[in-house]
């Protein structure tokens, strides 16, 4: 029997290193570990949305490729009946249970995917520039604005891209692609320089 709390490793543990880099770097990279990520399926035309909002305190975004965020909880639109809840709180099991309870009476799926994604935060004045090296969709600041999200291929990795701020992005990627994506981002930063922030 192990008495100590079992060791956990984030998808990029040991890879998102070394922390540091020049301050004038065009971008900063960071692995955001320990978030609760919960996939939600349901019919937005029913009471589903209301239940989710009551539970999470965030309205379900129904416009494609938008998100809503309140106090550390974001809901990311993934499809007409699919969302990803992203919470800073790392007790995903408890959150899932609450969501299950709230939606129990409706056709729904609440699936804990906290380990099914690696999350990379990319920020800095050159963030859009280096993303545009591999992202075919329009990243112009007037077009892809804070609060928007989109899914697609960044180079050879399928990601969810969440514009979290003017020059700040969250990239959600399957853990098995995370090392590739990280390496790609570092490589793409060659001309602007990068800095790695602590996870």
């Amino acid at each position, binding site marked *: 029997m192990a008495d100590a709390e079992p060791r956990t490793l984030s998808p990029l543990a040991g890879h998102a290193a070394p922390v540091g880099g020049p301050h004038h770097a065009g971008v900063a990279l960071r692995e955001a570990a320990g978030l609760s990520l919960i996939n939600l399926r349901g019919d937005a035309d029913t009471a589903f949305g209301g239940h989710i909002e009551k539970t999470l305190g965030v309205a379900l975004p129904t416009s494609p490729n938008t998100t809503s965020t309140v106090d550390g909880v974001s809901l990311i639109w993934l499809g*007409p009946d699919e969302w990803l809840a992203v919470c800073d709180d790392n007790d995903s099991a408890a959150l899932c249970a609450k969501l299950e309870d709230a939606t129990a009476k409706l056709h729904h799926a609440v699936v804990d995917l906290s380990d099914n994604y690696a999350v990379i935060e990319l920020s800095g004045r050159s963030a859009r520039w280096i993303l545009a090296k591999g992202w075919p969709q329009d990243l112009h600041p007037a077009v892809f604005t804070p609060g928007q999200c989109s899914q697609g*291929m960044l180079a050879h990795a399928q990601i969810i891209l969440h514009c979290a701020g003017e020059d700040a992005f969250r990239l959600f990627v399957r853990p098995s692609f995370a090392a590739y994506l990280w390496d790609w981002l570092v490589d793409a930063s060659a001309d602007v320089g990068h800095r790695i922030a602590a996870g």
Partner: protein
Amino acid sequence: MQLIPCPWCGPRDDAEFHYGAEAHVARPAVPSERSDAEWEAYLYLRRNTKGPFAERWLHTNGCRRWFNVIRDTYTHEIFASYKPGEPMPDIDQLTAKKDA
């Protein structure tokens, strides 16, 4: 690179999609009652229209939804995009409006 209009996500590069060939080919309700020739038709026989064509696309790298598109397979003009379950628009009407 064509822009395929996903009814939800809007126009995106065709590379984001998976192609599903002819639209509105339903799987027979009671397959055991279908003859070998009918089953062959369901499995393999598809229209190959050169011109405006109702076809299926899947937004693989986006919202993962199947939908239908009226696209000219020769000119690559796109006339309509609609969700599964919605009726097929009148192709003649669509293309006529364009010509007018």
